[in-house]
């Protein structure tokens, strides 16, 4: 099997997803048996002009100026994978999308200086065609390996569950947040991470985005009735990671 040439690129993000990759430890060397990193700015100075087999893109598309760079990546790469919530859905960056005064809030008078320009935080797929996604904030490194292994083997369809996190909570026999006087977005959040948050005693914040056809109305109702959230919080709850998935986005 020829090694698959992979390159990593980053846009607006915290770069935590690539950090997750370093957390594999020694087994990472095994992955290098069939994956050849050809460009990875944070980790290597090498650059390539060659055609790339797989481009992994982290971060949101949040400045029009980034469009050209993205188009160049698309042109050079056979497969484009958006990995991490920022790239897949806009992630946490999209929390500001519904407001207009965010720049002033952070930079005050200086907000109008041109180098501080920014637009809505959008998924990479808003700028270029994305072939596969690896959602999550951060990504689940086991899933990353699963996807990479499939790409290495030429799989054309990478499976991402369309059921919600509750399924995985139940399979792990996690105490439901709602049974612990808490709230949770698990019922509408896309699974695939193996539900680490409720297992650790905190709500699922839907960092992997919403499932297809999420029942948002029921979610709001359950947040208020079972989760005991004030109405205003329940209404805003899904802005954290899924602002771009909301019906009102």
């Amino acid at each position, binding site marked *: 099997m020829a090694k698959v040439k992979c390159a990593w690129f980053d846009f607006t993000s915290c770069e935590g997803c690539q950090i997750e990759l370093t957390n594999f430890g020694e087994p990472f060397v095994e992955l290098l048996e069939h994956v050849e990193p050809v460009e990875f700015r944070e980790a290597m100075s090498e650059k390539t002009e060659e055609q790339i087999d797989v481009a992994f893109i982290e971060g949101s598309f949040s400045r029009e100026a980034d469009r050209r760079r993205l188009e160049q990546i698309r042109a050079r790469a056979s497969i484009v994978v958006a990995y991490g919530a920022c790239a897949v859905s806009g992630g946490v960056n999209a929390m500001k999308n519904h407001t207009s005064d965010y720049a002033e809030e952070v930079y005050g008078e200086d907000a109008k200086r041109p180098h501080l320009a920014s637009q809505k935080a959008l998924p990479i797929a808003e700028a270029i065609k994305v072939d596969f996604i690896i959602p999550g904030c951060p990504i689940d490194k086991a899933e990353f390996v699963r996807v990479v292994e499939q790409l290495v083997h030429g799989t054309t369809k990478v499976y991402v569950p369309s059921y919600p996190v509750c399924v995985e909570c139940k399979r792990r026999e996690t105490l439901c947040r709602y049974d612990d006087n808490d709230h949770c977005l698990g019922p509408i959040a896309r699974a695939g991470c193996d539900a680490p948050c409720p297992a650790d*005693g905190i709500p699922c914040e839907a960092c992997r985005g919403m499932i297809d056809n999420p029942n948002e109305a029921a979610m709001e109702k359950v947040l208020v009735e079972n989760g005991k959230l004030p109405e205003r919080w329940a209404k805003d709850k899904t802005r954290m990671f899924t602002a771009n998935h909301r019906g009102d986005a």
Partner: protein
Amino acid sequence: MSKNVNINVHHLTRVEGHGNIVVNVTDGSIEQCQWQVPESPRFFEAMVRGRHYSEVARITSRICGICSVGHTLASLKATECALGIKVSKQTDRLRRILKHAENFDSHVLHVYFLVAPDLLGAPSVFPLVPTHGDVVKRALRMKRLGHEWGSLIGGRTTHPTRAVVGGFSSLPGGARTVREGEANLRELKEKLLGCVPDAVETFKLLGDLAANIPAFDRPTEYIGLVDDVEYGLYDGQVGTLMPDGTREIIDVQDYRSVTNEYVVDQSTAKYCKHNLDSYAACALARVNLNYDMLHPEAKKIAEGLGFAAPCFNPYMNSVAQFIEAVHSVYMTVQFIDEVLADGLKDEKPVEPTKFGKGAGATEVPRGILFHEYAYDDEGFCTMGNCIIPTGQNHANIQGDFDKLVPELLAADKSEKEMELALEMLVRAYDPCISCSTHYLDVTFKK
């Protein structure tokens, strides 16, 4: 000397986030010499507005994936201060362990993956796989240990799950029972002590490579936490150290009098200054400030590597990081012993007693980090401010450039050599650029 130099490093590699180095020398005179930060701004302070206090740390953790533990802890401390929460002794100790884990984890990453290639003359760690396989494997092994160590306490090292306002949402290792939690801690202790041989090897490697560390001194002001429990890392007050040895202690709540942020055109991140035009906040600053509080084993390492505090060579930050990494291993063992001696307890997070405003500080691998929030009566955030160490270091990096470039010119270095020297300097700071682009000084507001 009539030299022309044109260095234009766009998106410097092997650093977190985006930074450019631009140096123009025409006929021997420096026309431009800049460290630029073009990273796109992310507006976290605006995003936390209106969010519930239980969500705020979870959001601000996403400022930076490398120091997300630090952001979480600084955020929790600020929120707890604003909400009148005093955490338990056990929480305090477990958080210290978590903080040490991050420090170790990040320092290993920096020393091995970002700095070592420079010292070994490689463009990255990957070409080292065939040539220095054992070094790479050791690096990955140590990196993994850092990850497991932090995960055991925090659930995850990138955006930790279990550290919540008022304490922890579950026992170490997600244990169902206290007994299991204690067993998990004991196992971690064994693992930590088991990594000593790897640390010794790293020590030897660094010793061999120390000769490649450039000689360059620029005395500056050092700022970092000083704590009476331990070496300033998780908690304490703001300490400053001037080149002449003068020290000052400032309360964390008065952090703005330290940071004094301002906006410059070459950067989307704000700059900071205190007594001088710039200051440094980094591992070097911490070791300079807290040398006496280092664990004896870490001191041995420092001496072995010829490190003497105070040290004014910014390139030595990598050495300071390794000294800290060793310190973190031994301090964690000590805290585990303390937790076990008192008996692990299944504690519920402490509830708020008021809603107001408060600041919190913690050290992240690259220096001191401040968070501040205000909350309304229902616990929703009305104001947020984060000041990130890399932001605090940008002006100091620029200061170093201003001194280093003429020195390099005087030494008649080639353009390539100059470029490498400048790149290595920036990397030595281990900058976290993306996180440095979101912070706010409210005094700028309208």
